[in-house]
């Protein structure tokens, strides 16, 4: 059942190769396996398969991945709706958003594959946040403002979770590889939000609308590991040079207005 879920859509020959390779990798060690499989997209299905074969993803790891999946569901649906025919006109930036939308959909699929039956279902979203952003899917400025906040929050969220998946090399590396893609998105969208668009990095704690300010609180720090960065550059540069993590609780609070609470069971 698990195998069907993860590898069901793949070419049988490919599955055969993957499974054979997995068995070989067991003997050479988990992390060596990660490296050997680095360039194989199917590695992630394999990873999940291996984890299940060993008794399932650890509950705490699955929990972190479901947290990530929630954010990817949010981003993916946001772009899908915003880029739908008749929705937001993003003008010449359309190829940028199409690429972002493609990646977010791929992230959803990837995390679903890794989680297998443990994957949570997509929540119901309200991108107006209860009316705060009523023109989100008709006004390009609002759309881009929210896109920037979602991407920057995504970067901070993945960063904050890295230490919690450190015990699983494959999961950590996968998360890092998503994290840097979110950062690329964030930089490109940030330039679209400026006129003229220059900086792709966060200066201080930004100057977002009040409703989005929690996405940037803490970004202004100029000390890392107790080392004062002001000895090496300006406060602006020191804050730009390091992106700060958010805790899961902080991220949950940021996205809560965009998620429709589940009705209580009848």
């Amino acid at each position, binding site marked *: 059942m698990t195998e069907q879920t993860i590898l069901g859509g793949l070419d049988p020959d490919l599955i055969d190769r993957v499974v054979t390779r997995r068995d070989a990798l067991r003997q050479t060690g988990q992390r060596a396996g990660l490296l050997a499989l680095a360039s194989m997209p199917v590695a*992630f299905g394999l990873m999940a398969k291996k984890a299940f074969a060993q008794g399932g993803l650890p509950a705490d790891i699955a929990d972190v991945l479901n947290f990530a999946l929630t954010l990817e569901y949010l981003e993916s649906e946001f772009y899908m709706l915003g880029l739908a025919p008749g929705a937001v006109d993003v003008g010449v930036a359309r190829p940028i958003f199409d690429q972002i939308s493609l990646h977010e959909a791929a992230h959803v699929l990837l995390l679903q594959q890794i989680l297998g039956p443990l994957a949570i279902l997509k929540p119901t979203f309200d991108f107006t946040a209860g009316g705060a952003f009523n023109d989100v899917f008709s006004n390009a400025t609002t759309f881009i403002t929210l896109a920037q906040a979602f991407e920057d929050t995504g970067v901070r969220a993945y960063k904050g979770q890295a230490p919690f998946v450190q015990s699983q090399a494959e999961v950590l590396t996968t998360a*890092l590889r998503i994290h840097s893609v979110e950062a690329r998105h964030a930089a490109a969208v940030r330039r679209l939000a400026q006129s003229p668009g220059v900086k792709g990095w966060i200066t201080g704690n930004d100057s977002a609308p009040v409703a989005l300010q929690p996405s940037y609180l803490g970004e202004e720090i100029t000390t890392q590991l107790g080392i004062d960065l002001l000895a090496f550059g300006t406060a602006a540069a020191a804050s730009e040079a390091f992106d700060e993590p958010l805790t899961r609780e902080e991220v949950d609070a940021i996205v809560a207005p965009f998620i429709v609470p589940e009705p209580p069971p009848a």
Partner: protein
Amino acid sequence: MIDRLTTGLRELDFLARLARATSRRTFLQWSGVSIAVATVGCGDDNPDPTDPTDTPVSPGNSTANVPGTAGTNVPVEITVQARAADDTNLNTGGDTVVATLTGANAGQTIRVEDRANGRYVFTYTPTVEGTDTLNITINGSPIAGSPFTVTVGAGPAQLGSGDIGVLNYAYALEQLEAAFYTAVVGAFYVGVTAEEQQVFTDIRDHEIIHREFLKAALGDQAIPALQVDFVGVDFTSRDSVLNTAITFEDLGVSAYNGAGFLIDSPDFLTVAGKIVSVEARHAAVLRDIQSPNTAAFAGDDTVDPASGLDVFRIPTQVLPLADPFIVTAIDASQLPTT
């Protein structure tokens, strides 16, 4: 002095006998001088005249391939070839061959191996720059060319092991990036726009902060400043500068992505995460400057469209790509691999 020498020689003799009794090799440190002795039982210091293969050694005809120069933290290997009076190579071992190291690296351990084929291999690893002197004797008499002089210069930058090694690895890459953007900003290509000047200046400032932060975090375990060489980069050409910048940023992103799992400390992992997303922002902005309003900022050449995953590279994949730009040799052999 004579007393000390006598004591030393007695000690040597004892060790030689000990070596015969126990193993084929021994080495010792002796008040700032290092000595290695190779000897075994039934040695040629007591040739058996009835054995036709047991040709007596002639120290004055025996040779050693001592390198004239060496680098710090790189093992020096010296092979002594025992020869007979007629210059023919001996093909049996068992002579008492002694190497004594004095000078800058006196006190470093010398290891010795009697290959039992007429060759004796000594190794030591100098740690400081300067001049070393090696006296090599067989059965108490100096071999041809002894004493030898080894001039020790700066060896490769040793990244080190564990988290320190990974941080030094990042420090090396940040040094490269900071040097590159310093050169770019120092003399912009003709036709540079205000936007491009701002972007390159910002990135230079970020990379300098990354570099100095890592240097401070590493403290006395930081590798030295690396000598870089951007030969092949035309700093007067927008294309050349942008292409190189994008190459460095994408390489940096992939390097951090592929080094995370090598880090033990959660704090260091988080700091690496704080840096890598900024490198990814740099890459995206530079790519967007090169190909505005296209998918290039996160192009399919770096983000696999099927999985939405960015490239990652392990250190052995990254360093050869950085190598053309770094003059100083880097020793990454102690980096963790898991």
